[in-house]
């Protein structure tokens, strides 16, 4: 089927806060989708629910037709859905190389359970690790402990580790946050090139509207747990509600081209 991820009627409340309100969305295979919205709008909660870290109060999530709503994060990863984190989740006392070895080691260890990982044998691990490092431009940091890395590099490593599993679906939580403005496009280009080669369905949360409009085919706009707009970047970024609740007075200047068209 063309859809790979199907979320239906997702609801989630944390006490008095509504993090998800009747979320209904289908994601097509191989698409690139942007998730935008203010802080607390529910983007990260959506990712947390899809990856099993948080269970929705009601609703289901299906992956390739299979109900994954109640599965644990590690099972969902084994099925081929991976994520990166807003704050890079790394192994601080280990080097960049060792971080990747851990990631690859897990795939080797649990090889039978990973549905999409390429056949990875113990001997391949070192070679694959080095190849991944060069693909993401991290080779020069190979033996440095993670602690001393600049933020952009940490972000890249975080994403590289998520890719080790060769996921079919990748959810990126603010891949360019904390990265200096001049680095953002470089990193996104590098990442997208690395990803597109593997035919991965990508969803990413982003606050920078320039990045979102440049790299996505479709945008979901969140506000107070609801999806208030869903469509191609041109439409969504010009939507009145989106302008009011999301883009508004915050963040980077509105996208070129789109704004000029509106004016």
């Amino acid at each position, binding site marked *: 089927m063309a859809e790979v991820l199907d979320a239906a009627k997702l609801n989630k409340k944390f006490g008095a806060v509504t993090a998800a309100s009747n979320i209904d969305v289908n994601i097509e295979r191989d698409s690139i989708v942007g998730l935008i919205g203010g802080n607390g709008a529910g983007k990260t909660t959506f990712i*947390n629910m899809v990856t099993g*870290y948080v269970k929705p109060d009601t609703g289901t999530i299906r992956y390739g037709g299979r109900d994954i709503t109640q599965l644990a994060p590690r099972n969902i990863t084994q099925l081929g859905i991976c994520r990166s984190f*807003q704050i890079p989740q790394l192994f601080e006392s280990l080097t960049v190389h060792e971080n990747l070895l851990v990631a690859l080691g897990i795939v080797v260890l649990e090889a039978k359970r990973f549905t999409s990982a390429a056949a990875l044998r113990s001997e391949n691990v070192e070679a694959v690790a080095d190849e991944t490092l060069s693909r993401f431009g991290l080779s020069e940091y190979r033996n440095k402990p993670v602690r001393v890395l600049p933020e952009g590099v940490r972000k890249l490593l975080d994403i590289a580790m998520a890719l080790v599993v060769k996921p079919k679906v990748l959810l990126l939580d603010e891949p360019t946050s904390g990265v200096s403005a001049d680095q953002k496009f470089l990193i996104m280009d590098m990442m997208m090139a690395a990803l597109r080669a593997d035919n991965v369905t990508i969803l990413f949360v982003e606050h920078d509207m320039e990045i979102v409009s440049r790299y996505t085919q479709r945008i979901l706009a969140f506000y107070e747990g609801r999806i208030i707009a869903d469509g191609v970047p041109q439409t969504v970024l010009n939507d009145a509600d989106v302008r009011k609740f999301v883009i508004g007075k915050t963040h980077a200047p509105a996208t070129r081209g789109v704004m000029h068209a509106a004016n």
Partner: protein
Amino acid sequence: MTDLASVLIDGIIYTSYLFIIAVGLTLIYGVMKILNMAHGSLYALGAYVAATLVGVWFSHGLNPYASFALLFVAPILVGLAAGPLIERGLLRFMYGKDEIVLLLVTYAVLLILEDVIKLVWGVESYSAYQPYGLLGNFDVAGLLYTKYDALLVVVAILVGFALSWVLTQTRQGKLLLAVIHDREVSTAMGINVHRFYLVTFTVGTMLAALGGALVAPQVSVVPSMGVEMIVLAFAVVVIGGLGSLPGAALGALIVGLVRSAAVHYAPQVELFSIYLVMALVLIFRPKGLFSAAEPRKI
């Protein structure tokens, strides 16, 4: 029927001094996020000091009824001496370190205090039996209890109410509750969290020592009582939830009753049964009965 009443009443008596000790432990954890392993030795110190004072008092032939005051003077002395000494002299330099490192620090204090007790009082057992029978006995459902036992229960209830009142009705108490609830936010709001540490630790120490002092007339005061107590106190606060005062009360009740039942029907499994109950509670409530919600990490 008398059997059941006996188990129940013994259980409540046991609950009482378990509560006094455990509430101090949980308070220290709640405010300072330190599990004070030395709490057991402070309890023992309270017992030893009380036993010594009582022994001296009676050897001078002073008014026997006034000896009760000693049971409350001893913990104050221990608290005022040991509390600030440990908190200002040692713990103060360790704040901010890993929880486990802090645990090791309190463990080191436990090791040191155990030997201090042995050095000062030797390894023979002490006895301060005199106050125990002094007030006479009374009859409950055909069973004989001393009025001392009743006094113990009353003190425990008073301690519970006093703490509860201070924490919810006084300004300082409410600030302390804020610190227990969320230390980071409290600091961000300008509360001088460190100032509370000294008071909390001293009060906690006094409570441990009070438990020991009140128990002294009933048992042989021996060096091993400290460690045996920390293992029990830990079960109580874990069952109730670390940092929760009502939890300490409920945990004390559960442990007190379970222990009483075990002692009556199957003494060999006394400690085992307490921990079995604890394990069962943890299976259903991993962080104890009154546990706080966990904040989101990612």
